[in-house]
């Protein structure tokens, strides 16, 4: 940052320069018109070729048309001169900038007098209405993401060419004025409307021809009434993503055009420092011209759609359901055994270098085939409209994004992910860094509304991941805690979630504040944010209406929603019952619970627990009872945090029914579960009353004995109403 040091002598103010440029142009225009009148007389016709908009800038700003030299002179005196006020206010500078631009248009139209053809290749001069119609529409709709107006050229002509090409490569329309025309033409670069690089003219004033395009676009596509400057400027500011790149040295004339551009909402980026000022988002000094592209796009809020992902294998939704068998696998990232996680985090803009992909630790070619490795990836994003609530929404999309890579399989979320990368991918040159490329591209394209910058850090190091995972878990817990204060009764809307229908086409989750999605990853807040970000996406709001039974959680509107989103496969559900139309399960539930008939309680086990349960079934055996979106009364998949919810099988008596859980799950849930049970039944240290694999595994008798010894509350409950 350059400090704004005072100079001893009186410096010119920014406004002084604008006024000076305007005065210069005005005097030139007066002289030129007078000379033309002397030559051709006042009745000589004045017109640009191939336009129905007369002098388009003058016409759109004043609503008036000019037919001959006499009228041109009158317009200069009666319309333009009064705009040239000199108060030290931005309005005066804007008006003078516009006046200066109109003078440029007048000077240009004089070139076409008497049937002259003033421009020859490469200069294009005035651009026809057909040009506006051809390029205008994609411009207004955003298919052309922006317009780069280059004025002047770099000291090294190659640099100018490079800049023009950098915009061309991104699909922007580029116009050239002054020496940039020469630099590009002499480099042999293909120029013209077809390649979207348009050389206007060697004189600086020829820049008016691109302004003329912008203003005609407003009249044609924005239906702006000529003369309605307020609407005109609002349209150009909101809809026409143009900006100016002006190489030093800047004359007062160019500075005055700059004021006109800024009035229209087009920022000016320059490397000029002499007698120059800076205005945020409007007049930007960027001395490093190699950064003009990035600086300009940010200044004009131009976001580019990423269409191609740079990886050595195919990427398509066709691969989303692809399974990688053990024998085909090069490496496996296995979150159930080693420390792994995926995390999206919000950072400040300056903390992020866009598109930086970092891999810490060995790459895939340094790891033996068939390894089960510890790997984490942290996607850091920044954006002016980014909210922390969107983080988990992006995280939930990672599953689908990674799955779409040919030869890569992804399951789970948070710190329970599993990724298999196939041998075929390895041989094609697929690296861990490519996971980063995919994440970067998808975040930037799917969340372009909120993400301006994104970087990805991949850590392949068990030691570091251990520590990082603990930190990630803190973040996950904080997000969960935010939700803990909300209840199902305190909101009037629940949400669907059908994010995993790629795997389970008939499964629908209904997400409520007290019942998160069964994957454990989509909370009510996440669903809400997903809906905000993507109004037609996987999470749709359902108003809580038509309550049939509050205790069961049975609502007409929920039935309608599951029916609709399961495509008729599921007709009715309850939110809080294990027996009556329980919610379906896909395959990605964190936990599963099942009825234990001897105790009239329920057993819960989780994905990480490989061992047996007193039901005589392991997690995967229980899972096979209910996956794939079918309703199996007595079995239900659910998220971990649902265990400590007061709504957990509330219809059957609540979490007090839990008789067995793996020890590790008990430890994770202890604090919240104890608090919930204490609140609901007045029983302290409830988690200790729940049996685990250290107390009994397959023997229900042992279980019953233990429950009796500790005085488990289930023994005082009514039998299940099966």
């Amino acid at each position, binding site marked *: 940052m350059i400090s*704004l040091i005072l100079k001893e002598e009186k410096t010119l*103010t*920014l406004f002084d320069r604008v006024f000076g440029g305007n005065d210069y142009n005005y005097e030139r225009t007066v002289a030129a018109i007078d000379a033309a009148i002397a030559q051709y007389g006042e009745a000589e016709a004045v017109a640009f070729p191939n336009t129905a908009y007369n002098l388009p800038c003058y016409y759109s700003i004043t609503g008036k048309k000019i037919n001959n030299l006499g009228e041109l002179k009158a317009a200069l005196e009666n319309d333009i001169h009064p705009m040239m006020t000199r108060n030290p*206010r*931005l309005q005066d500078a804007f008006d003078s900038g516009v006046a200066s631009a109109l003078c440029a248009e007048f000077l240009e139209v004089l070139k076409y007098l008497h049937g002259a053809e003033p421009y020859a290749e490469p200069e294009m001069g005035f651009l026809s209405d057909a040009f506006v119609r051809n390029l205008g529409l994609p411009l207004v709709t955003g298919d052309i993401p922006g317009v780069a107006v280059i004025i002047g050229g770099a000291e090294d002509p190659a640099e100018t060419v490079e800049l023009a090409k950098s915009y061309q490569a991104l699909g922007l329309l580029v116009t050239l004025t002054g020496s940039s025309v020469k630099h590009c033409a002499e480099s042999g670069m293909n120029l013209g409307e077809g390649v979207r690089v348009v050389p206007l003219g060697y004189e600086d004033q020829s820049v008016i021809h691109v302004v003329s395009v912008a203003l005609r676009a407003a009249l044609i596509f924005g239906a702006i009434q000529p003369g309605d400057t307020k609407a005109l400027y609002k349209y150009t500011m909101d809809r026409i993503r143009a900006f100016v790149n002006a190489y030093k040295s800047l004359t007062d004339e160019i500075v005055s055009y700059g004021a006109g551009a800024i009035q229209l909402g087009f920022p000016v980026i320059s490397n000029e420092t002499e007698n120059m000022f*800076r205005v*945020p988002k409007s007049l*930007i000094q960027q001395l490093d011209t190699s950064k003009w592209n990035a600086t300009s796009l940010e200044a004009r809020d131009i976001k580019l759609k990423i269409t191609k992902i740079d990886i050595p294998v195919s990427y398509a939704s066709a691969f989303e359901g692809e399974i990688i068998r053990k024998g085909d696998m090069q490496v496996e990232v296995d979150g159930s055994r080693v420390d792994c996680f995926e995390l999206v985090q919000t950072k*400040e*803009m300056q903390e992020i270098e866009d598109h930086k992909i970092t891999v810490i630790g060995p790459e895939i070619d340094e790891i033996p085939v068939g390894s089960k490795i510890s790997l984490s990836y942290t996607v850091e994003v920044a954006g002016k409209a980014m909210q922390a609530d969107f983080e988990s929404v992006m995280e939930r999309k990672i599953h689908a994004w990674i799955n779409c890579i040919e030869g890569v399989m992804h399951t789970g979320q948070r710190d329970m992910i599993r990724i298999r990368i196939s041998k075929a991918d390895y041989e094609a040159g697929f690296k861990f860094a490519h996971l980063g490329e995919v994440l970067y591209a998808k975040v930037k394209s799917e969340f372009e509304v909120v993400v301006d910058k994104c970087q990805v850090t991949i850590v392949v190091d068990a030691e570091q991941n251990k520590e990082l995972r603990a930190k990630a878990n803190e973040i996950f817990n904080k997000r969960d805690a935010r939700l803990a204060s909300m209840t199902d009764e305190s909101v009037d809307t629940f949400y669907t979630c059908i994010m995993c229908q790629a795997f389970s086409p008939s499964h629908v989750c209904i997400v409520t504040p007290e019942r998160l999605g069964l994957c454990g990853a989509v909370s009510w807040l996440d669903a809400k944010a997903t809906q905000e970000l993507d109004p037609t996406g996987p999470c749709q709001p359902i108003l809580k209406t038509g309550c049939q039974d509050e205790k069961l959680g049975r609502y007409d509107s929920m039935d309608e929603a599951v029916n609709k989103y399961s495509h008729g496969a599921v007709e009715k559900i309850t939110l809080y019952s294990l027996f009556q139309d329980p919610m379906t399960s896909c395959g990605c539930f964190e936990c599963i619970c099942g009825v234990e008939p001897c105790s009239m309680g329920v057993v819960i086990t989780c994905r990480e627990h490989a061992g047996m349960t007193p039901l005589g079934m392991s997690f995967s055996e229980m899972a096979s009872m209910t996956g794939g979106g079918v309703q199996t009364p007595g079995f239900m998949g659910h998220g971990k945090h649902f265990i400590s919810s007061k709504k957990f099988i509330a219809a059957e008596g609540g979490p007090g029914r839990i008789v067995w859980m793996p020890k590790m799950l008990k430890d994770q849930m202890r604090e919240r579960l104890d608090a919930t049970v204490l609140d609901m039944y007045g029983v302290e240290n409830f988690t200790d009353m729940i049996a685990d694999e250290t107390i009994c595994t397959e023997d229900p008798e042992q279980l019953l004995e233990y429950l009796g010894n500790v005085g488990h509350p289930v023994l005082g409950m009514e039998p299940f109403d099966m």
Partner: protein
Amino acid sequence: MKDWASLTTIEEMEAATNSLLENASKVGADTWQQRAKNQTPHCGFGEGGTCCRICSMGPCRITPKAPRGICGCDVHGIVARNYLRFTVGGTAAHSDHGREIMHTLHQTREGGNYQVKDPEKLIRIAKEWGVETEGKDIYDLAHEMAEIGLLEYGFPFGEQKFAQRAPEHTKELWRKAEIMPRAIDREIATAMHMTHMGCSSLPEALIRQSLRAGLSDGWGGSMMGTEFSDVMFGTPKPLDTEANIGVMEKDNVNIVVHGHDPSLSEMIVYYANDPEMIAYAKSLGAKGITVSGVCCTSNEVAMRHGIPMAGNFLNQENVVLTGACEAIVVDVQCIFPALGPLSKCFHTKFITTSPIARMPDSEFIQFHAETAGENAKAIVKMAIENFKNRTPELVNIPNQKQKARVGYSVEAIKKVLDGVANSQVDEFGSTKPLVECVHSGVIRGAVAMVGCNNPKVRPDTAHIELMKKMLENDIIVITTGCSAQAAAKAGLMDPEKAKEYCGAGLKRVCELAGIPPVLHMGSCVDISRMMVLASDIAKDWGINISQVPVVGCAPEWMSEKAVSIGNYVVATGIETFLGVDPYSKGSTEVTELLQGENGVTQWVEAKFVVDTDIDALGDKMIACIEAKRAALGI
């Protein structure tokens, strides 16, 4: 010239007040409008500052025939002594508010009534103060900082810690002029001692002490009040709310908070949102509970929770006159004793809570940090139970309100500025984008509009008219206190509409940054935020504060606190414009010291400008800003 149509005009606000005054006459209530008439004309000796009643030989009143008091003190000594005592009344009030906050900070605990909601800010200040933070529990740190902060009031040696935030040049000026603030209580005690019978009568010495006491407020007590309120209750961020009397809800239980200390109102807001309390209100026939505010307590809860602002200082009786106010709950400062008798004319409970502000005809529920939750709950309950006692034919809530975006702490302003910075060229977290706007002339400068209402000025007119004038001239307005509420009530903080009243430069800035042209920076202690902002701007710009095209303005001020503020704003190097005379016109010497070229301006590079013609005052402010620009060559 401009279409001000979407603003609520002074005339409309007065019409609303008049309809409320009808309620007053129905019940035979007394109002400030009548009392102001009764008190006019005011005592000329009092207004000129020329009456001395510091000892019992007098009172001595200075006239051409009796130019000296019995002790021989001349008019200049008397006026200057009165001025200093007036100042330290304000210093004491603000700083004691800050002290209360430090005591509350000392009571914070995990899960308690009061918690540390902005630990980052606490750690940042601790580091600034050189306190070790590594490995410390946040509450241990809070308690340690509270003790250190409380020592700022009485340490034997040294300078105020927060004063070190000022730019080096400013600190040099302060040291050279011997006005660098020492312990806060010392500055107040010294002032009282200096003005005791038979001590100082040299105007210059008395005015120096006024500046010093003022600085111990703005860069001491007030700043602690602000900063540690943020630590406990959260640093304000932009929030949308509403302002003016129409925010009170006819069908709801209305609780109005009034005063200055946020500790109480934070708890009231919490319990008014408690589902149990809402259910209780519903069970007694109300549709819900509405908390709204008056004066600076209102600013505090508006900035942090979006609680609507029912009005400012001279609206405090209006909220009771609606006949729909179940309770007006007050803490300290600027509370009319009139509320006691007035509330007796309606069903309204007038609840005082602080031993600092005890009043007849009120119910006193002493507020303790340890029992804050219970106290607040009891008050909310009392209000709910009072709902049934309304007299329906007296209920009149004028339907007048405007949208307002509030919450511009220095941190929030920098965040806004980050939004217009370019990550390829700019650094973030600074005031530089604002500096660039001013430097380039897009914005001409800034005015810090602050202060009260005063019946001597048609209420709110000066605030609103001056702001309009500034906006048209591309001068951005930052504001606090009752001035902020005047702006909000008028609609000048509506981010959509208010920008339409600005010149092209300020309008463009508002559009790009998504801000209203009048930025609400908080309550009157939060003028300390303005001092921090001015310092940061000067540092980021590389010039002195006095060179920055910014001025202060208190067009309708009335309290001792306002004079204390005026002293520290001027001493910080910011020219300060007053629309009400500070009881000093009886002395040419004191007037020259405060307003002339040869007084304070020689010490601190700024002075007071007083003009009761508001339009002329505005012209002078613009001229001052333009002169500063010219001096910078911009």
